[in-house]
């Protein structure tokens, strides 16, 4: 057993678009230990989902390509695996939960069939055993009356139920790593809380690691032990969840945290602070530090020299000239 279940080293995923090279993921490194939940946070289009797709080997090539780096899963560099071997890992050892439960299920098959398909792809079991496993997994994710629900079509289920089906599908072969790409973004808040609670419970039961992708810091606080903050394809800060929320170092992280509204203090609320400007287009990235144009503490060198990754101890890594 390797210490880190997932170890991404200097991953570079580039896309060739209209003659330009878009560095969707640029030099990203992160590790997940067995049984750990890592939260990957960032604004839209910062490379979170591309990182996930790179791990799954689902980057459309062309236009995409892995320009460099390694992804070690359980000690094996999965970027070097041929497609037929990668297929055995997908769904079996690494599974994925998608953002849109409404469209991620195939509309013409019953949900039971779709979960059964995953099991049949990876394990040789009789029809009856497969059905038993499907019903068991439905029960595990808290779908009521699983024996009859397996015969439902996706359109007969609500969004929350569908996301439970997606989770059942992701769990069907007891994976070591689950990648959850904004699994609760499309759900309303009460259902969101139920799904998060369910995922925490299942993680405790199965011992799976989770790579949890979201732009919602509140969700991260609830789910993750470790947090990686991404911005424009790069890692800005990585730390344990307590360090990150208690003692954020990077101006971007600080900005994100102060943009969360605080309710119920009784006093007249201050105007909610925001981060000025917008995420730079990948077509025109700024020189030096990617965040310098929006940064409140930027100085001259920030717009010239790219800041190095600094280890502040206790696994707290930050990419900023101003943090020491």
């Amino acid at each position, binding site marked *: 057993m390797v210490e880190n279940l997932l170890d991404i080293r200097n991953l570079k995923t580039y896309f060739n678009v209209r003659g330009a090279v878009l560095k969707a993921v640029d030099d990203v490194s992160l590790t997940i230990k067995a049984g750990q939940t890592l939260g990957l946070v960032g604004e839209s289009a910062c490379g979170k989902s591309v990182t996930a797709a790179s791990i*799954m080997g*689902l980057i459309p090539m062309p236009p995409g390509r892995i320009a460099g780096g390694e992804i070690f899963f359980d000690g094996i560099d999965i970027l070097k695996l041929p497609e*037929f071997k990668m*297929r*055995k*890992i*997908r*769904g*079996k050892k690494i*599974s*994925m939960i*998608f953002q*849109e439960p409404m*469209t*991620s*299920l*195939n*509309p*013409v*098959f*019953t949900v039971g069939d779709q979960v059964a*398909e*995953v099991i049949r*792809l*990876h394990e040789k079991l009789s029809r009856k055993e497969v059905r038993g496993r499907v019903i068991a997994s439905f029960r595990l994710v808290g779908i009521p009356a699983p024996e*009859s629900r397996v*015969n*439902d*079509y996706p*359109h*007969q289920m609500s969004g929350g139920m569908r996301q439970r089906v*997606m989770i059942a*599908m992701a769990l069907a072969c007891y994976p070591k790593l689950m990648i959850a790409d904004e699994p609760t973004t499309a759900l309303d808040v009460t259902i969101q809380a139920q799904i998060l609670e369910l995922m925490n419970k299942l993680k405790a039961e199965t011992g799976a690691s989770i790579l949890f992708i979201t732009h919602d810091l509140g969700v991260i606080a609830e789910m993750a032990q470790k947090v990686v903050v991404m911005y424009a394809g790069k890692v800005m800060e990585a730390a344990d969840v307590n360090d990150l929320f208690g003692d954020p170092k990077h101006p971007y992280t600080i900005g994100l945290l102060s943009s969360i509204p605080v309710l119920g203090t009784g006093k007249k609320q201050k105007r909610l602070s925001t981060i000025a400007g917008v995420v730079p287009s990948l077509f025109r990235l700024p020189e030096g530090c990617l965040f310098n144009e929006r940064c409140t503490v930027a100085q001259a060198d920030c717009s010239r020299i790219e800041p190095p990754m600094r280890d502040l101890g206790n696994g707290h890594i930050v990419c900023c000239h101003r943090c020491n």
Partner: protein
Amino acid sequence: MRNPEDRHPFFDQIEKLFKNKTGLAGLIIITLFAMAAIFAPAISPHNPIENALYDQLKPPVWEEGGAAKNLLGTDDLGRDILSRLIYGARVSLTLGVVSVGLALTLGTLLGALAGYYKGWLDNLIMRFMDIILAFPHILLAIVIVAYLGPGLRNAMIAIGIINIPRFARIVRASVMDEFGKDYVTAAKAVGASDRRVIFNAILPNCLAPMIVQASLGFGAAILDAAGLSFLGLGAQPPIPEWGAMIAEGRAMILRAWWVMTFPGIAILLGVLGFNLLGDGLRDALDPRLRD
């Protein structure tokens, strides 16, 4: 919302098809033709290829000079028109099944490959389809039959080939449409191979347009075959093929209208039936249209 009892959704679809009036009408016509084809030896009053030299060109029973022995009259060789029509259903349905089967299989395969892999393969396949489409339909069939030699079997092959593009195009378009959807990515993410993604995940979602196209194709195939037979390139005498019957009766239209009118009506009803059935099936089979 939910099925009260644990019955297979297939039955819901059948029920829905029965509730749809046009679909039901098509289904009834096709069923009648299919029954005629299956039980032809039992229900046809005469042998369809037996000449009766004393009963030449008898009019239908309701015309003056008609007799109950030949309900729809006889042709110039004294063969019973009704019997020939009943056996003709056999020929036409077989022909439809074989040629649509051929076109559907090859067209689906080519269309799915083109739509899924895109790029040069797509260009290669679809430009080839364009070449087929550039020729007038029946002309190309004539060329193919001329090359293979006249006969029912070669006519089926020719009609199959000229109908490949219609399926390839529709399947390609549907596959491209489905390709970007999340469930396709999800299917890949659980470790399905390209083949499985295409055939087990995407194609079932393209079924509705394929079914409509297949039933329209069925009608078109019957029509094309009748055309080829009319030109003497399809069914050879004495096979009771509807198109061939029209050709044989053509010379006598003024003397004996019934010889070519009834096969014409049979073709019309057959084509109409398949078109109506196709529409009904589309409404019934697509789960997205279900309530």
